[in-house]
Every structure is written in structure tokens, then in C-alpha cells.
């Protein structure tokens, strides 16, 4: 990432000022702009030096720009206009954008070494297998799993939860056993358990919210009993933004002999997550929410559990020996990865993890705490706005960098349509896959703006300005 520091090389003072002004007006594209513009303007001799300097200049430090400003240039998709306005993407909680590094990795996979994994002897296959397994190691390191054998590649977090329900769930649950969930869970962490309950006769118990709209830990304590076999809950809520004290929940659940599954879809992309420190029995996450490609997700499970679980999908790869009348199965993780996997996507996921690790999850989290505070405080000031979930707290880290909200008298869909059409701001409206939560809160729908590390405070300002304009537009009709 080149900065304006490299401009000192430009001999012509007027030209330097011109480039500086142009770059400041187009922040975020500074790196590309610098290079391209200067290239066009300089004399041949100095151009060569410029190129060398630009390539070798080190990445800028945090002092010259926020994390959002520095990383924007890595995300080509953010550089566009919608409906005549510059795109402001505030829906990363639904899916994140992908940096060039991930896109290049995907392309490189298909151009250089695409081959089926685990089967072939030839060079391409060996290389593909190595990269695929390396990606698995990267995931294991990223969440501090004890071994890469504890990481199963699935299609997404939803499939991971279904995998647990259909294998561990069927094998271990019976009539009267209890599964504890919360009213704020994503549908993917409710429906598989409903299906499992129908099949096995197990019972679902739901924990409600405090007046602050956080998980009611008191109610959880009271609900846990010796019949509880599983507690499955979010780490960070995609609608309320609140965070669950997972370590505490795990401790309490283990005391009564229950296992814990953590839905980490909104936490792994945004902060350091350590599965061993949490003590979780299962943890699920999706690649597409953390700068990786769609179509790949993970299930982490403790080795003891995984090796006892019967197979999920049957087919190639997950077998040891196949006879006509029976087959023997491989060990985990292969046992749960039937058929040809999404090889390119897994490797791309690995590249995304590299990209995030290079920035540092602590840096990302720290920046998002700022964004979260800024978003929450300024959105609260808009008249008629009700934000769901707890406030950010004294340190600002008690909620995620997202806000689901409603404006009195205006439907969420009207808000998001107008924001998109008249301001180029992308937010989500609806029930965000948490219908029970919306019913619990007594609302039909809500709008949600979510920020990721490539968003800036300026973009939040554009969103708020647009929101105010939208509100006055609709209010003038009432």
C-alpha cells in the first residue's frame, strides 16, 4: 500500500501538488492513483525510479489513515457507483467483500494447479492436496484448534450445524432430552434442532432476553438441568449485536453434562477466537463472512467427539474400504467430507485467513470497536430511531459493529429502498433470519447496517445523512 510519502520523488512541485490534491479527493484509491497518475506525468528516467520506489515502499503505518482507508483499495468491488451514487456497502453481516488477494488465489488455483485432491499421484494433484490441507491448517491456527484434524470443511455454517444434528444428535439424543437455544438464534441454529427433536423426541428450551436485550444468563442457569444434552447459541448476535459469555456458558453446561455448540459466524470474522480458551465442543463459521469465497465453511469439534460420530453424507473420500454389502469409514475429518470438496474455495478461504492475519485480528477488532461506537452513538441521535441490543458499554466493546434498528412510523423496507436508490447505501431490511427474535421484540421487520474493517467513519456519515434525508422524505407525506 503506497502512501503520499512516495510523492517526494516527483520532481515537479506543481505536479506534486496536483497529485496530492487529486489523491486526497479520492481517498482509498490513493495507491492506484499515485502510481498511475505519476507514471503518466513523469520523464522516462524518473519514471523508472518512481516505479522502483513505489514497489519497494513499505506499507503505510496506521498514522496515515484508518484501517478502512488503508484497506479499501484491496477491495475492487467497493469502487463502483449504484444508481448514480458511490456505493456504500453496509451489509457485511450478510456477506463480506473479498480482497484481491483472495480473488487472485482462486484464479491462480484454477490456472495453475487445479486437480482432484487426496486421490492422484501426479504433480498437480499433489500440489492441490498440499494447498487444500494447508488451508485446513490455517483454519486450525486461526481459531487455535489443537489439531487440523479437528477441522471439517463443509459448505457453510448452516451445513455444519446440520452435520452435528444429524450425526452426533441422532446418535446421542433420545426421548425427553433437552436442547437449550435462545430466542435470538439465527434460523440455521433453530431449524436443524427442530427437525432433530421431531426425529428423536427431544425437547427444545428457549432462553429469553434481559431488558437490555442481551441473553438472560439467569434464565439459562435455571434452565440447565441433568436432562440438558446440548446448549447451542451464538457468540455474537447478527441482529442484537450482543456478545455471549461463551466460556461461562460452557462451564455451566459441562457441569450438567451438556455439550456446547457455538455459532461463531459473527465473531470469527471480527475478533480473535480461541476454541480452546472457550472450551467449546463444537464451533461453526462461514468463509463468506470473513473475506473468503462462498461455498465453504467449517465445523470444529473436539477430537473425542468427532471420532465417535457416525458419517453424515456417504460416498467417496469418507470411506476406508468399500465392499458390495458394507463399507468401512475413514477417520475424521475425512469421514465427514464425502465427494470432491470445494477445493479452490477452501484454498481461497486460506488466503482470506492469511489476509486477515496480516492485518491482525486485534487491529481489526479495535477498529471495529471504534466504528461500532460511532455508528451506535450517531444513529441513536437520529429522531425516532430505536436500536436493538445493548449499548456499546464503557469500553465500547459490548456490541458488534452492526445496528438493527427501526424508525418510528416508517417501514424498514421503505428506508432501505430509498437509501439504495437515492444514496447508494446498501443496508438490509427484513427479519435477518431471526423471525422468533422479531416476534419476541414485537416488530415485523427491522433495518440493519453492519460495518466491517473496510468501512470508514465517512461512510457511516453518508449512511446517516442518507437516513436523515430518507426520514424527512417519508415524513413529509404523513
Amino acid at each position, binding site marked *: 500500500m503506497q502512501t503520499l510519502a512516495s510523492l517526494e520523488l516527483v520532481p515537479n512541485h506543481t505536479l506534486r501538488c496536483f497529485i496530492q490534491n487529486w489523491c486526497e479527493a479520492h481517498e482509498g484509491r490513493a495507491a492506484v492513483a499515485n502510481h498511475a497518475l505519476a507514471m503518466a506525468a513523469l520523464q522516462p528516467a524518473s519514471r523508472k525510479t518512481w516505479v522502483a520506489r513505489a514497489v519497494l515502499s513499505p506499507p503505510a503505518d496506521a498514522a496515515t489513515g484508518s484501517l478502512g482507508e488503508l484497506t479499501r483499495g484491496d477491495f475492487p468491488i467497493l469502487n463502483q457507483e449504484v*444508481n*448514480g451514487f458511490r456505493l456504500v456497502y453496509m451489509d457485511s453481516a450478510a456477506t463480506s467483500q473479498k480482497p484481491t488477494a483472495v480473488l487472485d488465489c482462486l484464479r491462480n488455483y484454477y490456472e495453475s494447479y487445479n486437480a482432484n485432491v487426496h486421490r492422484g499421484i501426479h504433480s498437480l494433484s499433489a500440489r492441490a492436496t498440499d494447498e487444500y490441507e494447508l488451508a485446513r491448517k490455517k483454519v486450525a491456527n486461526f481459531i487455535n484448534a489443537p489439531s487440523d484434524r479437528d477441522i471439517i470443511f463443509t459448505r457453510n455454517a448452516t451445513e455444519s450445524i446440520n452435520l452435528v444434528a444429524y450425526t452426533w444428535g441422532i446418535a446421542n439424543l433420545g426421548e425427553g432430552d433437552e436442547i437449550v437455544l435462545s430466542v435470538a438464534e439465527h434460523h440455521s441454529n433453530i431449524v436443524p434442532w427442530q427437525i432433530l427433536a421431531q426425529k428423536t423426541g427431544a425437547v427444545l428450551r428457549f432462553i429469553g432476553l434481559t431488558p437490555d436485550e442481551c441473553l438472560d444468563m439467569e434464565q439459562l442457569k435455571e434452565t440447565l438441568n441433568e436432562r440438558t444434552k446440548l446448549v447451542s447459541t451464538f457468540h455474537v448476535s447478527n441482529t442484537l449485536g450482543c456478545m455471549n459469555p461463551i466460556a461461562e456458558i460452557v462451564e455451566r453446561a459441562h457441569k450438567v453434562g451438556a455439550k456446547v455448540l457455538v455459532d461463531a459466524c459473527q465473531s470469527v470474522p471480527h475478533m480473535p477466537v480461541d476454541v480452546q480458551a472457550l472450551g467449546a465442543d463444537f464451533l461453526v463459521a462461514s468463509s463468506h463472512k470473513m473475506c473468503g469465497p462462498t461455498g465453504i465453511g467449517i465445523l470444529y469439534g473436539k477430537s473425542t467427539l468427532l471420532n465417535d460420530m457416525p458419517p453424515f453424507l456417504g460416498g467417496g473420500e469418507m470411506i476406508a474400504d468399500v465392499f458390495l454389502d458394507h463399507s468401512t469409514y475413514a477417520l475424521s475429518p475425512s469421514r465427514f467430507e464425502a465427494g470432491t470438496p470445494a477445493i479452490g474455495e477452501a484454498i481461497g478461504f486460506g488466503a482470506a485467513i492469511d489476509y486477515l492475519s496480516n492485518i491482525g485480528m486485534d487491529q481489526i477488532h479495535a477498529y471495529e470497536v471504534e466504528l461500532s461506537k460511532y455508528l451506535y452513538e450517531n444513529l441513536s441521535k437520529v429522531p425516532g430511531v430505536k436500536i436493538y441490543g445493548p449499548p456499546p458499554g464503557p469500553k465500547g466493546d459490548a456490541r458488534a459493529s452492526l445496528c438493527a434498528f427501526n424508525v418510528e412510523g*416508517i*417501514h424498514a*423496507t*421503505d428506508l432501505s*429502498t*430509498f437509501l*439504495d*436508490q*437515492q444514496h447508494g447505501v446498501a443496508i438490509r*431490511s*427484513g427479519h435477518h433470519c431471526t423471525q422468533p427474535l422479531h416476534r419476541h421484540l414485537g416488530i*415485523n*421487520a427491522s433495518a440493519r447496517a453492519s460495518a466491517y474493517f473496510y468501512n470508514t467513519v465517512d461512510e457511516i456519515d453518508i449512511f446517516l445523512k442518507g437516513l436523515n434525508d430518507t426520514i424527512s*422524505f*417519508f415524513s413529509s*407525506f404523513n
Partner: protein
Amino acid sequence: GVCFLIFPFQCSCDLPSMAASTTCLSLPCVSSVVVVVVSGASLASSSSSSLFSTAFPRRLSPVVSGSLRASVSPFVVGVLSSSSSLCGGVLDSSVLLSSSSSRVRTSSSSSSSSLLLWRGLTVQTMGVEMPGTRMAEELPKKMQEIVKMFQAVPDPRAKYEQLLYYAKQLKPLGKEYLTPENKVQGCVSQVWVRPSIGQDDKRFYFEAESDSLLTKGLAALLVEGLSGSTAQEILAVTPDFMQGLGLNQSLTPSRNNGFLNMLKLMQKKTLQLYMESQEAASASSISNPRELETPAVRETEADAAQDILESPEAENLSSEDSHVSSTRPIITKKAVIEEKLEEALTPTELEVEDVSYQHAGHSGVERGSTETHFNVKVVSESFEGRSLLKRHRLVYDLLKDELQTGGVHALSLITKTPREVTATGKS
């Protein structure tokens, strides 16, 4: 003089304002005719409609109309486009224009485009057809007016204001009618519709409700546009006209689907009510009661609707050819076109080619519709002594039914006399 404005790019929303500003500039040069040349396959109907509304004095934005009214004579704009469906619309408009043209210049570059220009024509006769509005004739009158009004509003924000105005005017629906049966599926917000039959006129009226203002506006459009129509008129409405409103570009796909589903629910409920009233009444209120009883299989309501719709069509066809069976006549539009042209023009050469596949997926072409676009080549003595305009108009007049109600969107015409064919040596 003639001023040419050439925009060789894909049409975008900026075109109307560009056209407006350039026409303002060109006027002082005493040019009474302006030709706007646009090439690009994706000429969205809303931008073209706003282009036309910008060009014509009658429905101009205040900025442009002031300066244009200063000009001596009104002018007409022709559009060169590589989209033949639009071209078909332009050619069609030639049929509707009065014949006071003093000068016609044509150039046919490809088989799918022609440039036509007239002077001294009044705007009143202009019923310019864009792909979305071709269906306009099928709509109840009130719906047509609403469509025209939205087309006249080029600015998206102004369209929203218009929509919200409708939402405000909508009469609230009683709470007892907010039931699951009345609820529209596939809508991001909640929408209910309730039809009823007028006591005196036996026509259908609607009420609707929604919690989202924009959706309420859309519902209000449908309520306003369809209330007071007959069952046939309501069931004949195809969703194509939505493009004509120019709102779909301002609407997300999910909302668009909501509009579609609103219309479908209204049509479905109209049919239900209609069937109930038919069973109750002894005398039938449709033109051809026989059609309701004879169809071989009526498994779905769609079939029943089809029967009601086809009763007038069946009569038309049966009077002209003998292919009609007592159930649904299976007859290709191509055959009908050939038949009609044969009969009227006794051509020495006639080629009718179905090129609908080239236009599948165009906005304005309903998915799954067939036989929508044709290439027609006619060589006939009847064209002798007739200008190109007159020849095309002749063909269009002959195929009026197919174009207006038969689902044919556009024809690409080659009309020659036998002498011309031998002279040019082309066949």
C-alpha cells in the same frame, strides 16, 4: 436545418438530461428538426420514455419546455436503435401519426433499424410506443392513464413522490379483511388486497393495505387502475406494463416481485369472485358462455382464465380461418400472419421468420412467451407507387390484431416491389 445528436453508448439514465441540455443548445441554431441517434442494445424503456417525454413539448420538464416553446415549430425525434423491439415501436408510431409529413428520410442500415423523421407534426397524435407500453392497449383505461403519467415523470425521486401520493390517497382497508387469504405472498412488507363486485355495474373493485409506504403506493396504483373494470379486462392485464411505469428500475427485485404477486393475487381473487357470481347468477355476463362449458380439461384456474380471455379472440379467428376447434384453437401466429398477408397483398415473395429467440429475456417480453418477434419480407405489386412509410403502414394495418392483442411485440419489415427486387439484383 437538421441537428443530429449521436449517442453511441448504452443508454443510461443520464440520457434525458443530456438530450434536454443539448436540445436547448441546438434551438438557437434555428433547427426545427432534431434527430437523436442512440445505438445500444439495452435501451431501457424508462430512459427511452423519459427521453421522449423530454423531446416532446407536451410533457417536458419546466427547464426544457420553456426554451422549446420558444421555437417556431414543434419537432419530432426519431430514434435509431439496434434493438428491434424498440424499432418496431417506432415504426408502429408511424402508423399512428398523421400523414402531414412533408419530408421523409429513411435509411435502413441493418434489418432491424430504420430512421424516420417528420416535420410539422403535432405532438397530440404522438402515441409513441416503447417496449413496455406496447401492452398499454390491453390495459383498462385508468391503468393506461396512470402508466402515461408515470412515464412523464423522468426524475426517480419525483416518481417516488408520485407513488407516495397514491399511497396517501388509498382508502384504508378494514381490519377484519387483513386475513391470510388476502395477504400477498412474496412481499418484503405486508400487503393485503380485497376485491368486491359492484352492486349495480357488476364490475370489480379493489381495496388494499400495507405497512410499507412504497408498497402501499404500488398497491394503490393497482387499486386505482383496475377498479371498475370487468373480469376480462383485469385478467387480460399482463405484468409487462410495470416496465412502462419506469418504477422497476427504482425498485429492488423483491419489491418488484411483490408488485407482480399483488397483481396475480388480484387476478386470482377476481376469478374466484367471478366464478362464484356466475354460479349464483342464472344469466351469464360474459360474451360467450359456451366457452366456459366446453373446454376439455380445466384443471387450474389459469386454464379457466385463459378460456374467458380467449372467447373474444376465438371469435375473431373463427371468422377469418377455419382452424378453430371447439376447445382451444391451436394455431401459430406465424401462420396467421402469412395468411393475412397472402390474402391482402398477393405477394410474389413472402417470408415470415420467427426470431423471438433473439429477444427472449428483453424487458417487456414476458418470460415463456413465444412468437413475439418476426422478420417479415414481402415482395408485392401492391407496394408499387407507395412510399416506404405507406407500405409499412399497410402491413401494420393488416396485422393490427396480432400486434395489439396477439402478443406480437415487433415486426422487422422488408417491403419491396418485384421491380425493385430485380433491379437491385438482390432476392
